[in-house]
């Protein structure tokens, strides 16, 4: 069983919410579910859509065609005509019948009197979306009780949940009785051990930060990173986490640096524009060797670009941001599970090496929901590196003491027998400003001595992961959320007896040279990336001399479809 459903309507019609509720019902039935949204940057009147891809096998991405179109308005009915599968159905209200009738040869027309039902039940017009998702569940003969549990748990007020459940049941019954016999795809819950959770990349990053012991979060709203702020503002206070929305991204990162200097784990998150404002302070974190974590959810640029659409175009920017040279971690998780665990890793690495660590995701991963097994938090390790609290036992404390690894013992203010002098100017071991030439060499070499140890540490952390046929002649490469469509493409190709490999880069800085050489040498390489220029190809060449042979690129703000990758592989191997 594999099904793809799109729910569409005007902005303000509760498209995302109802899509989420239906998807959550499928997750509770043990299915593998991926849900993603498509919306413009406005509050009312534009077209919103939520796409659900669900399967009884493990899936990782959206599907570009649809088995069910749930149309909350007339526009939705006609908008996806070219993306209907052979046995598709369209769920719509009688008021939009004239649009639907034109498609009677392309899809099963499932007419549900949503507006009438809402009136009969004395509910608000917006609640027609509950009738609609009920109908979608009924059409596939899914278990209503599971849908009901999802609805009830998704509304804070029980009475609102009840009425929505009742509306869903009305839609469910009509679809089940009058239409389900004519619709081929049946969805049934699976018998499965263990609970699944359904969450976005943003939520997973926020949870990872909480689990890592972050105590201070400051961020300025910017799509698509704002949901991290919302999640932490809502849940943080229960866990003793201070969440602040300051006056700008500049204030946010400088606050994070202040909090980290004082000894707490701290993070900010933003998108490319906000990070542009943060770049000067990123250098402050590097020069003062203050460990901070910055999460960046990319969107389409340059400038304001398309705020609610996806891109991977900030890779080179993030790798090189801020003046001067300094080592940094840039980590790009590929799915929600990696968002959680790699964020924890980022906090540990930032403190262990006293460098900035950047989590680099994009709108597609940040705002898409994925089902995954509930996170195992029993073995989380927190490593604060050379942190000194309480009392410094040495003779005379030097914040920037030159050591073998380049990492200096890090006391925090209030440590007895230690005065902690941090400095944005080049400085001596004590932290006093100095422009002495010999001192400058000593300190720059100290900071860069860390790099060797950062690479050694990274190499132990699966910085790049290989999927698929180990002997494949053709190896796809990509980073971050590209993992999602590529893994689904690999499955499609496998079913056609075409074997390729995929090397997924999670670390971009330091660059996992050993892994790249091991898996890519003497192979044909195909880059998959949401950019115009193919940035990873340049990075790969710079670090290894290897050249990318083929590219699958997309820069219209939409995520790369698995089928787009499959087509390109086809083209190449012929």
């Amino acid at each position, binding site marked *: 069983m594999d099904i793809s459903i799109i729910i569409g309507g005007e902005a303000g019609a509760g498209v995302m919410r109802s899509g989420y509720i239906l998807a959550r019902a499928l997750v509770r039935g043990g299915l593998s579910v991926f849900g993603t949204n498509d919306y413009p940057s406005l509050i009312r009147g534009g077209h919103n859509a939520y796409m659900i891809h669900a399967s009884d096998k493990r899936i990782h991405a959206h599907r570009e065609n649809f088995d069910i179109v749930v149309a909350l308005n007339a526009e939705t009915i006609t908008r996806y005509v070219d993306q209907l599968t052979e046995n598709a159905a369209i769920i719509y209200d009688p008021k939009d019948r004239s649009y639907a009738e034109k498609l009677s040869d392309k899809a099963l027309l499932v007419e549900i009197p949503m507006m009438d039902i809402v009136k009969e039940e004395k509910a608000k017009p917006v609640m027609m979306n509950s009738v609609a998702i009920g109908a979608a569940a009924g059409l596939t003969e899914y278990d209503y009780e599971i849908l009901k549990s999802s609805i009830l748990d998704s509304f804070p007020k029980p009475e609102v949940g009840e009425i929505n459940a009742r509306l869903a049941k009305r839609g469910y019954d009509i679809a089940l009785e009058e239409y389900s016999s004519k619709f081929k795809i049946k969805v049934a819950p699976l018998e499965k051990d263990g609970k699944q959770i359904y969450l976005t990349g943003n939520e997973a990053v926020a*949870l990872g930060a909480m689990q890592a012991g972050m*105590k201070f979060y400051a961020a300025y709203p910017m799509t698509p990173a704002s949901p991290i702020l919302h999640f932490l503002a809502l849940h943080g206070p229960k866990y003793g986490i201070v969440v602040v929305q300051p006056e700008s991204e500049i204030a946010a990162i400088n606050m994070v640096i202040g909090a980290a200097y004082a000894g707490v784990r701290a993070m900010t998150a933003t998108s490319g524009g906000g990070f542009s404002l943060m770049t000067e302070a990123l250098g402050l974190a590097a020069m003062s060797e203050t460990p901070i974590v910055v999460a960046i959810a990319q969107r389409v640029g340059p400038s304001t670009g398309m705020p609610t659409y996806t891109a991977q175009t900030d890779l080179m920017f993030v790798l090189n941001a801020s003046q001067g040279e300094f080592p940094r971690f840039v980590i790009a998780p590929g799915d929600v599970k990696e968002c959680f665990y790699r964020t924890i890793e980022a906090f540990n690495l930032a403190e262990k090496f006293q460098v900035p660590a950047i989590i680099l995701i994009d709108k597609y991963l940040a705002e898409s929901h994925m089902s995954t097994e*509930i996170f195992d938090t029993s073995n989380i390790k927190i490593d604060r590196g050379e942190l000194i609290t309480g009392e410094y036992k040495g003779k005379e404390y030097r914040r920037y003491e030159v050591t073998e690894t380049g990492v200096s013992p890090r006391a925090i203010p209030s440590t007895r027998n230690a005065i902690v002098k941090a400095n*944005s100017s080049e400085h001596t071991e004590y932290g006093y400003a100095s422009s002495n030439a010999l001192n400058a060499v000593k300190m720059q070499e100290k900071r860069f001595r860390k790099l060797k140890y950062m690479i050694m540490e990274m190499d132990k952390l699966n910085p790049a992961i290989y999927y698929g046929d180990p002997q494949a002649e053709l190896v796809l490469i990509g980073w971050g959320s590209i993992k999602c469509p590529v893994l689904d493409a690999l499955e499609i190709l496998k079913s056609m007896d075409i074997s390729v490999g995929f090397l997924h880069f999670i670390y971009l800085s330091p660059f996992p040279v050993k892994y790249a050489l091991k898996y890519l040498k003497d192979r044909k390489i195909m880059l998959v990336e949401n950019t115009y220029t193919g940035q990873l190809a340049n990075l790969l060449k710079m670090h290894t001399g290897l050249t990318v042979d083929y590219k699958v690129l997309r820069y219209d703000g939409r995520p790369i479809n698995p089928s787009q990758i499959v087509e390109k592989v086809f083209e190449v191997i012929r």
Partner: protein
Amino acid sequence: MVTMNQLNTKARNTWCPGCGNFAILTALKKAIVELDLKPENVVVVTGIGCHGKLGDYINVNSFHVIHGRVLPVASAIKLANYELTVIGHAGDGDAYAIGLGHLPHAARRNVDIVYIVHNNMTFGLTTGQVTPTTPRGLKTRSTPYGVFEDPINPIALALACDATFVARGFAGDLNHLTYLIKEAIKHRGFAFIDVLQPCVTFYNTYQFFRERTYRLEDEGWDPTNKVEAFKKAYEWGDRIPIGIFYRIEKPTFRDSIPGYPKQPLVKEDLKIDLTDLLNLLT
């Protein structure tokens, strides 16, 4: 108890002889000694400019940050560990030009820190350009035909930002400045001090201010009336008031933050149990 000598450091001082920064540094040290603060519990955050080197010259924790960003860094240090005494130092370029955007917010949040602006009305370290407080008409390296903008009024500005402690000091009146810094440290909330600071190299105002400044305290000034404080803020001519224009008690930022723990953040256990939260996502 720490002594003045123990607050000295080994760093070589590079301020010009006679620089107003010396008086501000000495006043700060005296305030720390007289209030009996432990050096390890004091943090000085400095911006960019001549004043920025102050951290090198005082044996307490210090963070020399980037231009204009003293307030966000200092605010978060205080939030992370409210047991620390956090004192931000900024130049007039830091505070009123590039970093002005932070002032209203630190003030309205009432972050419990001290903010001392070394207001010498010139960019000293970059060799004498105009700043937002340079008087109209003055010839500087970037305004060779004279300044053609009106200066900012820092006291009126801080009052408008709802700072809960607003004062002006003069680097030529050490005892009074020491008094102001002590009061500012004792104040629970955002304490703003604009210090008239002569720059002996690019804009020497010692004599100008000596002839004109007078202490508000000597005239029985009531610092609880905001409207009167505003009027006083515009007194600038033959007589220039120094002292505490306005002070009021209000809840601090930390008092207002939902869920701030019962101890400083820095003392909190990093391990938390997320089971309940994860279950909400099933």
